């Protein structure tokens, strides 16, 4: 079988696309690839319009089954190819776009999903939203990016190290540490004083030492869904007097200043606090990323919704319990056994790519007080209940194995593709008859 894969962002463009829309599709493609390679031959194409049907034609001639997996939202998935095309997409809203807008018929996702006849997404929440719009038996499978195997292995290694002493990380980029910054440099203009951060300075290597109860979150601050304002303010309030609580925000964005400016202002705005906030903008080499994971006690997510949330899955696969809301894709892998759950409520919003910003769907807003509660309870467990922490950590590894191991992905992909070809064969026969 030939499996053709494509995402608009690829290995050549990822650096400048970090943090731009749809960039994360490339990471999903990368995680899928080893599993796809167990199922068939895999070819990644750069230009589907010219390459896919040529490859498909060759397969037809050989009698080899062929499918094109387009790692893209449906409105950016080609529907005019002869080759069977399946969108692989992330989504975190209660409804899928079911009306065309801005002159693009594909913005009505139903038209694309009808044309493709099948689709892959990452969560049962989105499967339900798609079936609600299509039909109860529409062929769509929830297949999360299989990150568990790689990270679980790292987690086991990390546990061999002693976590009691401070861990040192080397970072090529910008590190902003609330303990070392003059926060008044980020005050409103008329009150500004002190030295800020020189973003024009050449990138240098920084060393960061982490100890105590470390909470980590990895996200793109340009993504409006992340709600880092709550994450930060609740942390500062919960740990105003707690010196050994640290929040590390590892920021993924192509522009350091744009990524940090707002957050730095909020470091000022939340004063004063004895806990520590560290912002990291820059590249972490694998061993340093592993040390960050190792130094972390809890992984934090406060977003309005997630298509799957790779960083959360990665840290949990390593045995880090979460502080997060159990909404959208996170319903599939969060529970009170592996996370301190934040309450949330629904709120009307627009589909993110709808330029009209028409209210058509729901997102989930965190309950701020309950986030404070989750911080305090998790800190108490980290400090005073080692057994409970260990149990939650083990549970995190197990739940994520069930959610996003390569074995799970392989099994679901095989079943999905088998059904896809079966359907097409049946449809083909029906046509001939």
């Amino acid at each position, binding site marked *: 079988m030939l499996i053709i894969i494509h995402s608009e962002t690829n290995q050549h463009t990822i650096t400048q696309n970090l943090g731009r829309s749809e960039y994360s599709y490339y990471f999903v493609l990368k995680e899928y690839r080893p599993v796809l390679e167990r199922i068939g031959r895999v070819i990644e194409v750069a230009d589907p319009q010219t390459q896919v049907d040529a490859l498909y034609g060759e397969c037809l001639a050989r009698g080899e089954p062929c499918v094109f997996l387009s790692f893209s939202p449906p409105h950016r998935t080609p529907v005019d190819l002869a080759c069977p095309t399946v969108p692989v997409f992330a989504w975190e809203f209660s409804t899928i776009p079911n009306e065309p*807008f*801005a*002159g693009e018929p594909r913005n009505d996702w139903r038209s694309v999903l009808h044309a493709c006849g099948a689709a892959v997404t990452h969560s049962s929440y989105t499967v339900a939203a798609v079936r609600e719009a299509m039909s109860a038996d529409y062929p769509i499978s929830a297949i999360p990016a299989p990150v568990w195997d790689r990270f679980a292995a790292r987690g086991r290694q990390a546990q061999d190290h002693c976590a009691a002493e401070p861990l040192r990380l080397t970072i090529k980029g910008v590190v902003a540490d609330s303990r070392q910054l003059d926060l008044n440099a980020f*005050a*409103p203009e*008329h*009150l500004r004083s002190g030295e800020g951060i020189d973003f024009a300075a050449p990138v240098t290597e920084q060393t960061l030492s982490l100890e105590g109860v470390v909470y980590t979150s990895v996200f793109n601050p340009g993504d409006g869904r992340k709600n880092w304002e*709550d994450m930060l*303010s609740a942390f*500062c*309030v919960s740990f105003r007097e707690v010196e050994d609580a640290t929040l590390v925000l590892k920021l993924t964005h192509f522009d350091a200043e744009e990524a940090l400016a707002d957050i730095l202002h909020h470091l*000022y*705005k*939340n*004063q004063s606090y004895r806990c520590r906030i560290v912002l990291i903008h820059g590249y972490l080499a694998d061993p340093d990323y592993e040390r960050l994971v190792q130094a972390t006690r809890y992984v934090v997510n406060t977003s309005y919704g997630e298509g799957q949330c790779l960083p959360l899955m990665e840290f949990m696969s390593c045995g880090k319990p979460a502080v997060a809301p159990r909404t959208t894709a996170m319903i599939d892998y969060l529970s009170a056994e592996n996370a301190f759950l934040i*309450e949330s*409520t*629904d*709120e*009307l919003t*627009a589909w993110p790519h709808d*330029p*009209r*910003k*028409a*209210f058509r769907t729901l997102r989930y*807003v965190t*309950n*701020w*007080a*309950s986030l404070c509660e989750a911080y305090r309870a998790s800190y108490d467990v980290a400090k005073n209940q080692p057994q409970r922490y260990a149990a939650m950590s083990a549970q995190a590894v197990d739940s994520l194995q069930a959610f996003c191991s390569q074995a799970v992905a392989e099994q679901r992909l095989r079943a999905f593709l088998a059904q896809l070809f079966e359907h097409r064969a049946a449809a083909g026969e029906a046509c001939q008859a």
Partner: protein
Amino acid sequence: MNFILYSDVSDSSISQSLGRPEYSYYFVLKAYRPLLESLGRVHVVSAPAEVDPLYRRLLAAGEDSVFLSFAPPQKTPADLQCPTVCVVAWEFDSIPDEQWDNDPRQDWTQMLARQGRVITLSSHTARAIRRAMGEDFPVLVLPTALWERFSDIRQAHVPTPINAGATLAIRGCIFDSRELGLSADALLPVPLTPEEEAALAAEIEAARPPPLTLKRRFVIARHYLRLWALDLGRDLAEPVPRVKYLQNWYWEGVRDRVPDNLHAWLEQRLPAICGAHPIPLSEPPPLDLPATDGIVETRVDGVVYVSVFNPKDGRKNWHQLITAFCWAFREQPDATLVVKITQNDLALYYSELMTLLAQLSPFACRVVVMHGYLDDAQYAELYKAATFYVNASRCEGLCLPLMEFMSSGKPVIAPAHTAMEDYIDESVAFVVRSSEELTIWPQDTRIIYRTLRYRPDWGSLKSAYENSYRMATAHPQDYQRMSAAAIERMHDYCAFAPLQTRLADFFALASTAADIEPVLDNASC
């Protein structure tokens, strides 16, 4: 006892002040006045400077006075001889207990300690004050006495869950979602047709200057250098500085011949000549706003929700108030939301409101927005027309309209936080859940998070709409019970006599208060 009253906003300035932050102080002053008149003599001064002379005059005549400042402590004079008491409208869980901008008055604890006592509108504010000042600090919680004002409405009108049809009139204008031609697609600019595109291209082509031949460069140079040499811009109606002509010459006739890598260098060395022209700001086209000087009216019926707010007041959370309504009732043609705006300047909110309604469309329910001035009779019709009143605020110092509609026998949708904890619960309201969130003290120029307000829960607000609609349409007895409970609650909360007693006790006037005739009939404000 003499009560000397002052508020920044007065009878004559209120119509311009509608919607300004201090305007609620004016309403509080007006509402307190009859209570104060029943206990002593009231003098309203038009400037704080008048307080002490009046105080001394009264003192010379052997009379006591107290100055009630209907203004926040930082705006209340701290150096008066006259005993001063602030009336504080406040909606946060802490009061400013530190100073900024080198202004000691910003620290309310200093101001209040000097005054020795304080009047506020809610238990929530009283708690915040006592947390900062100590449990024993004298705080009077005094909501405005308005229950008696609604006796006419209560007598003339039995609240019914389904409005059979009522006419609402206003001097101003009315926006009706059914007549606005709302469409989400219309929020995008219409793409040009090929013909329009061609016409536009031709226009741009025609406006392009002729090619820069040697001759043309010479003409340009001669033209601008002459203007420069003779400084001919000096005497124009709007004088043009000489160097401007050199700049025009450089940009129109020279710059394209200067190598690219010199552009920035020249711009730095000779900014007046080689710097870019400022980009002309294109004024947005003026809004096509309707006339607001006539009396207009509309009919409403069915289940009618009413809310009164100023869209520029950040506490009101009115986007959610409207979105939850439209989402809950997107298929209910007999649900209507009437919004009475308390903001004079239509241009300040018109586009925001119209965009919001378009983003929500299509919906079967109806939104009616009333902009303008309601006289007493027109207001009475609005009270009567309501099935429910809605509040979705992040925080409230009191919320007069909510109390007014409840006093008219209308059950409400509202959260039970801040001031509303004093009178909102499940027996009179569909209570909207809410969660705390950090915020700043509004006057704090440092904009540091120092206090809490509330984040109403949208899902719970939507459920409150759905549940209240179900009650109105299917369980009229429950509605009547809730209506009666609302009246009862307001009687307990803001009837004249108990508040009069409370106020008299606070100023240790209890004995005289007993002798004073109740002045219920005069208690209108």
